[in-house]
């Protein structure tokens, strides 16, 4: 069982330096390997802080107590790929160069196999014909697909996603969710979202985050394989989730 858990957070508490109030406290989470784990909560509840902490972006800015256990070697942030709500494509780089950004940033020459891998990834996200285009020439959905390819090119076991589909229209979002599940098969994903339906479609585990400081509770999910089709059961669970989120909101 221990094998199938990639990260275990025990009694996590987090506070920004210089501020008295904790943002998170008593966070207990276990993130299963090669699965999607969603963290669901209202905006501003602290879920992004958790994700940024795991990505190693808050190192000097916060006090953290509690433990993060992982079988991965070394610093957790070394094994992380990050996908944000904005696609964060560099407007001065072509699709190809954006996908290969990590080589640029580590001053490494791109080898021929790597180039082929990047091309293959761009093909998989369906943008082979746009490989030399610039981000400004692409639609929002296409840009997020490039971001997905860039994330895959990073080839990290853990992918942290901060509402990457939230800025897209419903159809595009649906398609991109399916594509992500297919392409991220062998990765462990932590998905931050405020959309109950998204969480229900993609995750094998859902944590609800609420309160001040925020705590988290797990929420039961259907047993079907992801990505799940929208069914009566999903709709029902979605209703429950929304009610629970609303209740927590009222109580806090």
């Amino acid at each position, binding site marked *: 069982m221990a094998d199938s858990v990639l990260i275990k957070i025990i009694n996590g508490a987090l506070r920004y330096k210089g501020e008295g109030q904790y943002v998170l406290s008593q966070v207990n989470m276990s993130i299963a390997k090669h699965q999607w784990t969603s963290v669901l909560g209202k905006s501003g509840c602290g879920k992004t802080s958790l994700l*940024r902490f795991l990505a190693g*972006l808050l190192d000097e800015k916060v006090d953290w107590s509690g433990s993060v256990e992982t079988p991965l070697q070394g610093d957790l942030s070394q094994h992380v790929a*990050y996908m944000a709500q904005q696609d*964060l494509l*560099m*407007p001065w780089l072509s699709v190809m160069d954006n996908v290969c950004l990590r080589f*640029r940033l*580590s001053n490494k020459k791109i080898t021929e196999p790597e180039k082929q891998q990047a091309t293959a990834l761009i093909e998989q996200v369906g943008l082979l014909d746009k490989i030399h285009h610039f981000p400004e*020439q692409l639609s929002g959905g296409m840009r997020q697909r490039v971001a997905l390819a860039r994330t895959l090119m*990073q080839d990290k076991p853990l992918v942290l996603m901060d509402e990457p589909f939230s800025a897209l229209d419903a159809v595009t979002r649906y398609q991109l969710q399916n594509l992500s599940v297919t392409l991220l098969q062998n990765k462990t994903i932590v998905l931050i979202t405020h959309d109950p339906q998204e969480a229900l479609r993609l995750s094998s585990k859902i944590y609800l985050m609420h309160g001040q400081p925020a705590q988290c509770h797990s929420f039961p999910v259907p047993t079907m394989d992801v990505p799940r089709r929208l069914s009566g059961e999903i709709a029902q669970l979605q209703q429950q989730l929304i009610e629970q989120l609303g209740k927590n909101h009222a109580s806090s």
Partner: protein
Amino acid sequence: MPPRNPFTRSAQSAEVKPRKIGSSLLQGVITVIVILAIWQCIVIFFKMPSFILPSPGAVLQKLVQRADVLVFHAWVTMQEILLGLLLGLTMGLFFALQMLLFKPLKRWLLPILIASQAIPVFAIAPILMLWLGYGIASKVVMAALIIFFPVTTCCYDGLRSTPTGYLDLAQTMSASRWQTLRHIRLPAALPTLASGIRVAVVVAPIGAVVGEWVGSSAGLGYLMLQANARMMIDEMFAALFILALFSISLYFMTDQCLKRAIHWRL
């Protein structure tokens, strides 16, 4: 690998472009003609003596008649302006980087930066002449000095206001400080720097010509002084015209180049 060309966006935009350039050219020509007509009317109706306002015809005649002299002096001024731009841009970029990389240095550099803008170039021009001589160096420094402030502030602002998302992404890709600067901060600062360069291109000629007025042996400013002393106001206007023409075309050329090179907005 096919060449990267940001301008093959779509057939539609490719069609629109030439028409746009053509119409803006037409606009420019119409503007010039209207100004010349108003000018000629003022000369005729107010009976302007030629030593106050020569007619456009007289100026045009001088442009043709003294073409060789005008070209020689224009070339001198042009060199001063271009070298001044080069020096000013390099210095501005260097200062902005220093201020970004070594935060405590900013407190020391800022007064220098503000002084460079607050002291009128006319006031320091004679001193610069004595230090640097009456050759090209003093004019280059004058032009550089006058553009130093806009370039540095634009560059610094651009470097400082990199979207945090980009920096986060770079950090998760474990980029070093230098690589982040080189691949993220610098390119992200380019659009802001470009507006600095546009301002610089317009004001740099002022520095060069002020320098020539204070001390020189060639250049359009020198020619204007000489024409003024000899009461050849039409020749003075001809020199002025060349200077304006050069400044305007330099601006539009720079603008086009920048638009092509920096086709994105943050």
